[in-house]
């Protein structure tokens, strides 16, 4: 062809050949990068279809063996009365948060949330896997080959996690009841706090977490979204800051200024407590509005940030009731093992090598 001849004469055959190779490689790479999204078709079957972050997932029968790959899903499962057959490790209070430990006694762990062990997941022979987009998008094609997989978009939206889990397992009634209960509690809290604080409401709330060598101020996220729902306002410092900010220098304490400060601490770590005491004794700290009004409340980081599910949300709300000295009529009681065995439509399904079945 005249074009290739001209190019070959002008630039040299070897170069053209090499250019062709580069183009082929680039094309292959782009094609392979785009390819996977085209492979996500699901074959239509009988059963239900659950809409989730990657379109619809078909689930043929009510799942008995559930593997949860993130904390919010684990929390939601326990709230709905499901005992998963596999969960991922927690971030603090390893291997599982204390508030869930009893409910999850004897459940297998499948590794870290960031890199769940896929062979282990396959070995557990689940029929439903609940994952999250940010962490598990890459392994979704593999998960789909193991079992039907539903994926949430955001990690900290606990209502979405609960609803998704309920739709996938056929427990929508239970989920609706839980969310209704939550909404009632929120309405009650808003009424009580407006009555108690009067003109001082709404308050600006700062969610501050101490680590051993720095301090974090959160904007959105689990705690932030719940406080938002309850009517709190955000301090101006965290507008446009994404998830929040990290401070290392005590002269920046004025950034934390708000009407009420919720201090997230981790009881297992003495260095965090020490850092908190150090910052709290600085004169700039004494000048914060919240400190002067005596509205600095120390709360548990696990339920405020890490849990990510409706049980954690309810525990967070409980702590708010306590700190403001309000009446707490609608406490959610944590499902106990005995209660769960008799719960609506669950029977504990034995693992392949375990013949014992739990009776109601």
């Amino acid at each position, binding site marked *: 062809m005249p074009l290739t001849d001209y190019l070959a004469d002008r630039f040299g055959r070897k170069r053209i050949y090499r250019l062709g190779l580069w183009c082929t490689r680039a094309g292959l790479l782009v094609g392979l990068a785009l390819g996977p999204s085209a492979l996500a078709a699901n074959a239509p079957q009988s059963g239900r279809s659950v809409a989730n972050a990657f379109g619809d997932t078909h689930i043929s029968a009510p799942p008995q063996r559930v593997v949860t790959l993130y904390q919010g899903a684990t929390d939601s499962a326990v709230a709905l009365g499901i005992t998963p057959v596999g969960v991922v490790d927690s971030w603090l209070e390893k291997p599982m948060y204390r508030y869930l430990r009893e409910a999850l006694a004897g459940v297998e762990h499948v590794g870290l949330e960031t890199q769940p062990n896929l062979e282990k997941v396959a070995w557990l022979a689940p029929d439903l896997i609940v994952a999250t987009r940010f962490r598990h998008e*890459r392994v979704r094609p593999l998960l789909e080959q193991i079992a039907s997989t539903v994926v949430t978009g955001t990690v900290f939206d606990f209502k979405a996690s609960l609803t998704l889990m309920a739709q996938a397992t056929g427990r929508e009634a239970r989920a609706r009841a839980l969310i209704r209960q939550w909404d009632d509690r929120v309405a009650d809290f808003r009424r009580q706090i407006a009555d108690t604080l009067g003109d001082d409401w709404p308050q600006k709330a700062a969610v501050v977490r101490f680590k051993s060598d720095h301090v974090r101020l959160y904007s959105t996220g689990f705690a932030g979204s719940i406080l938002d729902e309850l009517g709190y306002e955000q301090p101006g410092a965290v507008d446009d800051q994404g998830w929040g900010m990290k401070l290392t220098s005590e002269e920046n304490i004025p950034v934390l200024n708000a009407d009420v400060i919720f201090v997230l601490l981790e009881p297992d770590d003495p260095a965090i407590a020490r850092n908190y005491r150090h910052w709290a004794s600085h004169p700039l700290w004494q000048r914060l509005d919240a400190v002067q009004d005596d509205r600095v409340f120390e709360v548990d980081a696990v339920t405020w940030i890490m849990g990510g599910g409706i049980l954690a949300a309810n525990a967070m709300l409980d702590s708010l009731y306590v700190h403001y000295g309000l009446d707490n009529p609608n406490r959610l009681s944590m499902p106990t093992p005995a209660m769960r065995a008799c719960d609506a439509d669950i029977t504990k399904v034995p693992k392949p090598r375990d013949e014992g079945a739990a009776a109601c």
Partner: protein
Amino acid sequence: MTRPLTLTPSIDATVAAGRARYTSLLGLLGLVLLSSMGLSLSLGSFPTSFPEILHALATPQDSDIAFIVWELRLPRLLLAVLVGAALAVAGAILQGMVRNPLASPDVIGITSGAALAAVTFLALFGTTLSIHWLPAAALIGALFAALLLFLLAWKGGVAPSRLVLVGIGLSAAMGALTTLLIVISDDAVAMTAYVWLTGSLYAAQWQDVLGMLPWVLVAVPLCLAYARHIDAMALGDAVAQGLGVNLLRSRLVMVACSVALAGAAVAFAGGLSFVGLIAPHIASRLVGRGFARLVPAAALVGALIVLYADLLGRVAFLPKDLPAGIFVSGVGAPFFVFLLHRTRH
């Protein structure tokens, strides 16, 4: 007195003996690699025996463990082999060209460029774009870093020493930006980015293997074609030009090969470092410094290192699945130290 000089037969004999030794060494390495691949295929969290594995390979339709063998273990170990070979060859090229034993793709900034691009992607676009674009982003980062390196190091030509110096500077700057992004990100992004930086073959799938394969199949033969040029350049620029080597073109092509191999490897396996540095060293102590001999040996050594590192990550801390990058040094460094000891002079 007029006995003719008979040097030629003994030289021929020596050369032949050397060649035989080389091929047998290479064959041995190849055999070790194949058996290691077999070993890696049979180990994992799910207890499997070798006959079961063979059955799954031959007739996947009626094997229980076909998914684990074909979708989880096989692509992962193939990717490990390809990535290890690619990184080792990339390092061999650089060390041959720059003649500094510390030269490797990490040192001159290729890995740092890919890392910066990958962490930027995770921090800024992780929630909006699909993660399947991450390898492409990392690759683009590596190529950008190489381009920047060339632009900054160009001064009438590309002198290797200047290339390395500029590469170190760029690497430091890009590493600093990467650290900054990790420090200010939230925990989920920071941990994901850190795992990527460590280097991990987790969730390797067939599309990754097929994406990596072309780079290796094209770049490795290409650099072998230029092997003589590298040996000539080792004798000095003047000598090389005297031998008919086009310095600029050879350097460009070789660096391009190195960047392509290292960039592709890092794009699929994360910031796996150290392999590109020590695999060529280990190989050179086994087969000598001739480039044409070094490349296959380095490739095999690199493949073995990454293969075993990934195997350890999969089975040593059950049920956790740890990134291979953690064990690359654990596997490679002691062996390297052992070789250092054995060659004291």
